[in-house]
């Protein structure tokens, strides 16, 4: 959407209240969804729960293709469709629900910077591990991504996605990295997040913000997803305050409504150990 159209939609959005029938679309939980998509989806779910906005989660095979930007998850609210955490945050802000209003300018700058850090490092590392590492791509990513489709479509779609991701990685200079270096980058990112969090309950004051939702989405997914090796999860487990942060958010926002955040899919257990 061009900027003018976005502003127009924002105006319309501000006029209507949040409907009960709001739906969040993501790929199938058990067979299809991959690590990076699950992290993004969980981040959006956590954010909406923090704003106390009800949303139903609907799993569709073609969620990625339905989405206006090609990325999952996306929400269908009233007669608008918005995808990805950034635009969804702006959309809910237009409706009057915002978690970061109490922050001053410097804090808002920090929050945006840390969100970019998570997107830049954690999300890119997740994509790299899924699609550029040959073992993971062959054993997990390609079979899962193409599971709903029959041959030859499954082959074509899986390889097309892999080619797209690899092209993007080489454009940003990650193609030359080894898996070890990627794990090292993830460790450094988690160390930065851990140092920023310190002993606080949430990243800013006592109230959660979209940064908390984003970090929760990624860290929880990394910890509860089984890949070909446990190295990634082990690296993250070193930072105990991030672990307790995830547990706290899970207990506060997900268990009260008796909804498990989709962690039963190919994971070791339903919750964090």
């Amino acid at each position, binding site marked *: 959407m061009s900027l003018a159209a976005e*502003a127009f939609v924002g105006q319309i959005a501000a006029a209507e209240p949040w409907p009960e029938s709001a739906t969040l679309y993501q790929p199938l939980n058990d067979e299809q969804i991959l690590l990076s998509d699950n992290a993004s989806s969980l981040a959006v779910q956590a954010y909406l729960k923090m704003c106390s906005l009800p949303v139903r989660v609907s799993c569709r095979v073609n969620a990625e293709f339905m989405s206006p930007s090609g990325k999952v998850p996306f929400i269908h609210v009233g007669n608008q469709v918005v995808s990805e955490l950034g635009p969804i945050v702006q959309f809910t802000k237009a409706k009057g629900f915002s978690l970061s209003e109490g922050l001053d300018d410097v804090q808002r700058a920090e929050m945006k*910077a840390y969100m970019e850090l998570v997107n830049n490092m954690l999300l890119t590392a997740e994509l790299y591990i899924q699609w550029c590492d040959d073992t993971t791509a062959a054993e997990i990513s390609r079979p899962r991504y193409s599971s709903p489709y029959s041959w030859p479509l499954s082959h074509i779609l899986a390889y097309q996605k892999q080619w797209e991701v690899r092209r993007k990685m080489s454009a940003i200079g990650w193609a030359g990295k080894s898996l070890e270096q990627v794990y090292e980058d993830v460790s450094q990112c988690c160390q930065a997040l851990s*140092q920023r969090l310190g002993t606080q309950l949430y990243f800013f004051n006592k109230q959660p913000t979209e940064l908390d939702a984003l970090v929760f989405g990624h860290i929880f997914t990394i910890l509860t997803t089984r890949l070909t090796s446990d190295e990634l999860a082990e690296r993250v487990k070193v930072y105990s305050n991030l672990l307790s942060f995830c547990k706290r958010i899970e207990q506060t926002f997900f268990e009260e409504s008796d909804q498990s955040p989709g962690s039963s899919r190919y994971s070791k257990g339903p919750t964090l150990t």
Partner: protein
Amino acid sequence: MATPMELRCWGGDWDLPSVHFESLIVLAYGKFAGAKISVKPIDWTWRTITATVPELHFDGCTVIEPTKILNFLRKQRLNADYELTAKQGADTMAYIALLEEKLRPALLHTFWVDAENYINLTRPWFASHSPFPLNFFVPGRQASLALSRIMLTKGESPYCTLTEVEGKIYSDAKECLNLLSHRLGTSQYFFGNTPTSLDAFVFGYIAPLHKAPLSSGQLQQHLKQLSNLCQFCNVVLKNFFTENPPEPPPAIQEPVDANLQKLTQLVNKESNLIEKMDDNLRSSPQHRPHRSDHRPAARSKNSTPA
């Protein structure tokens, strides 16, 4: 470190030690950390097409890419971040990620993809600094690399056309510059009175934008409104990159009149407040429809070549 380290980078112009923003990052950090780096510009050599710039040579090993070079310098005990707390180190990483994601695409676009700037400034400069026959290939290759990077990272549907991507990356970049300006506030450097690696990164990204004589520079005009960032650039250039650097700034500022200092702070606060109000006005949904009539027209004027 008996033998100085050698840095290969693009040469300088427009009052800057180098026109290439990655090389500037390394040069600035080297000055902040007190490293003895001898600069070898690759202009007019065949390295313009063979080498990845910037490149640091020391004792037989070669390091490329600013982040890796900075890590290498830190391992050689040339650490400008020594006095930072853990939280400040984490903030550094976060702000560098912000610069990479939000500002870099717009910078690449301003210099390499925007038709007016490319034809009037970037291509002539790089072609004149490359040997024959490379001057035919080097600018074109850089431009296509820049375009492919922008389209691959930011150009997912529905932003399939370049004009829609342009709108998005420029608004992201302006927001990023505003955020940096808020973070810098009235202090001289980002963390106190001594420059650190974050200052090097910000300087490297902003200085070419500030100093280059761009013909169509909406981002440059936006930057010029953020006076504390421009001041930051000038201070770094004056203190670290002139032939006879003046005495360290704190020594000079001590005898300054206390009233003058208060007045300067008030003026800065005023301009920050006006910036904030302006941004709030621009970003509030009620006011957008009025301005959005002007904006697409203005954008299309900027992005179509004359």
